[in-house]
């Protein structure tokens, strides 16, 4: 029972991180129909920026996270303006290739400054809470709590503010949004900024439990893609639910089946699901 | 020629096409009109096999094609054009058309590897067919032009030629005259008459009423997925239900 609860906690922690990353990815997809392969690179840059702020500038964890979020948000906006905006009417293969270009560039730049070493990020939440034999890492508790706060905040933002409403409107009907005079450029930039913030925060939350290195985004982004396909591309609740499914599958699979193969679980799941249902698990409508 | 019986297509809980029965005679120009979102394109997609109908039957010259896949329907002689046709922009008009006859050929990878007699003969035939179609639509002079360098009207004609190169019995044209000027519309209308004169059956979706009224032998009117009227241009024009449907919904559709 204790091990089971331990895996539940681990699954929740992992699922929260995956959910946050997938949320940014699904927002961009829902609004701009771009599968942003560079999203994992934004996540990686987020971790390095926090590391930089903490180690080289000596600021507190929270300040570093905020700084990193700002930098990555701006980076997201720059990508949208310089790359995806000019490609909005190109054949669908082009934006994917451009996203790969961004990914390669960001990784090379980080590699140039920090090398390919694995780095450890410190956190003020290094302790462990022993709950009747179940070990809850404080960082894990922080991750779960932050995810709840972020998801609630994002929901309030999308539902209660004018800007949020325009984002939703555009996600539901792009042509219609143009007709009622929504500034598509602003919405696009806003979406990329939010997506960048989510990536940076997720990276900063997870980095202390993991390591910081230039290729750290690869696995995460691919799992995030699996998640948004599972949850339906563009669906916000789908991203969270999908994140949890993968998080739990990995925590339990890693413990009960094989730790070496736990990274394959997500992809194997995707292969099986798409083989049976090419439109994804929760996809709606005929298109 | 083409007979549709009680055709229905549901998307989610919505009926895009609802219990439509109609018969289009051979060697005629048949038009489908209706406000935006009336289910016209869905109707075409059902006939050509892109979507499977929820219920109903589609008969082509007596053959049941209701559940056939798109490529089979095409092989039975249903050609079609789309509202926008994506072509290979940096290839010539002729190069774009040669593939039109592919469905009448059989060469596979092995023929390619050994450059078989069959492949050579079929490629020659496909090229001739493309030239023939190009000649039919009056674009022979442009055969070496890149698609990227063609005007909107020339693209429309290339799309026609591509459909014709499949050796169809019936062609489904989705808004063939959208985006071209009145003079060019006239030219495209002439082209449709020429198709019928050459033994083809034409079926088109169009918003340009002047053109429809001038050339159609028969018009079917769809509204919210249902057939609300059919008949000659004269009959349809004076049908109060049709007038109501057009005035009652968005006006730009009737423009």
């Amino acid at each position, binding site marked *: 029972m204790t091990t089971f609860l331990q895996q539940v906690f681990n699954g929740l922690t992992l699922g929260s991180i995956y959910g946050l990353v997938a949320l940014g990815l699904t927002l961009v997809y829902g609004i701009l129909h771009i599968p942003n392969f560079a999203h994992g690179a934004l996540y990686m840059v987020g971790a390095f920026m926090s590391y930089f702020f903490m180690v080289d500038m000596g600021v507190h964890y929270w300040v570093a996270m905020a700084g990193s979020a700002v930098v990555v948000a701006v980076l997201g906006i720059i990508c949208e303006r310089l790359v995806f905006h000019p490609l909005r009417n190109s054949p669908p293969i082009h934006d994917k290739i*451009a996203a790969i270009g*961004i990914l390669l560039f960001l990784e090379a730049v980080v590699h140039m400054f920090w090398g390919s070493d694995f780095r450890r990020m410190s956190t003020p939440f290094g302790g462990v809470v022993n709950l009747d034999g179940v070990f809850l890492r404080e960082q894990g508790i922080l991750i779960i709590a932050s995810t709840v706060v972020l998801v609630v905040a994002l929901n309030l933002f999308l539902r209660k503010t004018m800007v949020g409403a325009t984002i939703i409107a555009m996600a539901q009907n792009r042509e219609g949004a143009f007709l009622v005079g929504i500034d598509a450029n602003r919405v696009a930039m806003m979406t990329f900024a939010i997506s960048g913030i989510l990536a940076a925060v997720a990276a900063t939350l997870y980095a202390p439990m993991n390591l910081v290195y230039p290729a750290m985004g690869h696995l995460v982004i691919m799992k995030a893609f699996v998640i948004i396909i599972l949850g339906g591309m563009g669906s916000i609740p789908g991203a969270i639910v999908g994140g949890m499914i993968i998080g739990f599958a990995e925590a339990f699979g890693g413990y009960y089946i094989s730790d070496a193969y736990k990274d394959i679980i997500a992809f194997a799941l995707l292969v099986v699901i798409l083989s049976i249902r*090419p439109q994804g698990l929760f996809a709606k409508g005929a298109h | 020629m083409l007979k549709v019986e009680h055709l229905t297509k549901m998307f989610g809980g919505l009926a895009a096409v609802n219990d439509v029965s109609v018969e289009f005679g051979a060697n005629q120009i048949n038009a489908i009109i209706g406000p935006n979102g009336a289910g016209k394109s869905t109707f075409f997609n059902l006939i050509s096999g892109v979507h499977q109908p929820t219920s109903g039957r589609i008969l082509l010259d007596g053959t049941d094609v209701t559940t056939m896949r798109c490529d089979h329907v095409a092989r039975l002689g249903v050609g079609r054009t789309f509202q926008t046709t994506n072509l290979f922009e*940096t*290839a010539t008009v002729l190069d774009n058309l040669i593939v039109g006859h592919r469905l009448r050929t059989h060469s596979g990878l092995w023929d390619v590897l050994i450059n078989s007699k069959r492949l050579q003969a079929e490629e020659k035939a496909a090229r001739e067919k493309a030239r023939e179609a190009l000649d039919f639509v009056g674009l022979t002079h442009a055969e070496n032009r890149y698609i990227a360098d063609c005007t909107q009207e020339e693209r429309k004609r290339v799309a026609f030629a591509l459909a014709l190169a499949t050796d169809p019995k019936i062609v489904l044209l989705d808004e063939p005259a959208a985006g071209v000027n009145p003079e060019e519309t006239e030219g495209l209308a002439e082209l449709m008459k020429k198709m019928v004169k050459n033994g083809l059956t034409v079926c088109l979706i169009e918003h340009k009423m002047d053109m429809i009224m001038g050339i159609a032998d028969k018009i079917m009117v769809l509204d919210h997925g249902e057939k609300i009227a059919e008949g000659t241009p004269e009959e349809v024009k004076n049908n109060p239900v049709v007038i109501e449907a057009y005035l009652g919904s968005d006006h730009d559709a009737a423009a």
Partner: protein
Amino acid sequence: MMFKLGALIMHPASKYVLLALAVLFPALASNEYQVYVMATAFIWAIAVYGFNVITGYCGQLNLAHGGFFAIGAYAVALLTADYGWNFWPAFIAALVITAVLGFLVGAVSLRLKEHYFAIFTLCVGFIIYLLLDKWEELTHGAIGVRGIAAPDGFGLVNFRETIPVYYLILFFLVFIIWFTSRIQKSLLGRTFIAIRNGDDLAESLGINLMKNKILAFVISTTYAGLAGALYAGMIRFVGPEDGNILHTFNMITYLLVGGIGTLFGPLIGTLGIVWITQSLQFLEEYRMIIFGPLLVILVIFFPLGVSGSFLTWMHRKAQALGLGPKKVQQESKVNTAREVENNA
């Protein structure tokens, strides 16, 4: 002037000049290392030709392509090193394995459209990489495979040496280019391009989408397997990093620079970039700082690449100069011009 130079390049004889240069290259090269680099570039070019078939002609962005290269390499590596096969039987087996796996993966993945297909194949590529890395009983895991057999030679020809193996690889490259040109010009190639133009339109032309997409996919994975098998035979060491997704990204760069969907694009792009990186050794580690933005700039401003831009420019120039087929006596001449264009 430029046009005349271009016409010279497009002349049917130029490809024989190119071939002659490739044959003479070991004599012209200043050291054996250059021959080695060129041979490696040829191997990548073969793989990029495969990528061009599925992505360039057929329009399906297959991000598992590098994975199939690795499978070809590992097939030869494991069959020769662990099971004592000779190179050539293992080579044939590698082609069969990549073709069969290509068929299986294609049959599942090609039911998906556009983004879904790209994401799905990205995951397949990653599964291949993870399996190579983790499945130690079969693949030796992270330490990789040593002791791979070299291609068996004949007479005095020994493929353990750089120069003979260079000619062996050149032979396969020429074969692949020849075969691809056959496909491109044929009705089959036109069928692939029709699918790239759009699924709906292709279907309305009576084209069986799945059958043709799977065929293109199998051709492409077999090319990748061929390249991988040659790679294993030449380098004689393989490791999981050969299945890294970055190789697929590299191939995308080669193809885009050279010209996606053109016959000589893969060759121009691969050789061009491999030699540029070679001559700027210090760049090796940071080359993506240049190539990343280069990819972006290419898709935004020059999506046709070197080869495609050149052909388009030549065609327009020829049209403007009135070299069109207006007169009957010019017909034959124009036909050859068109053939050249198809060849190019």
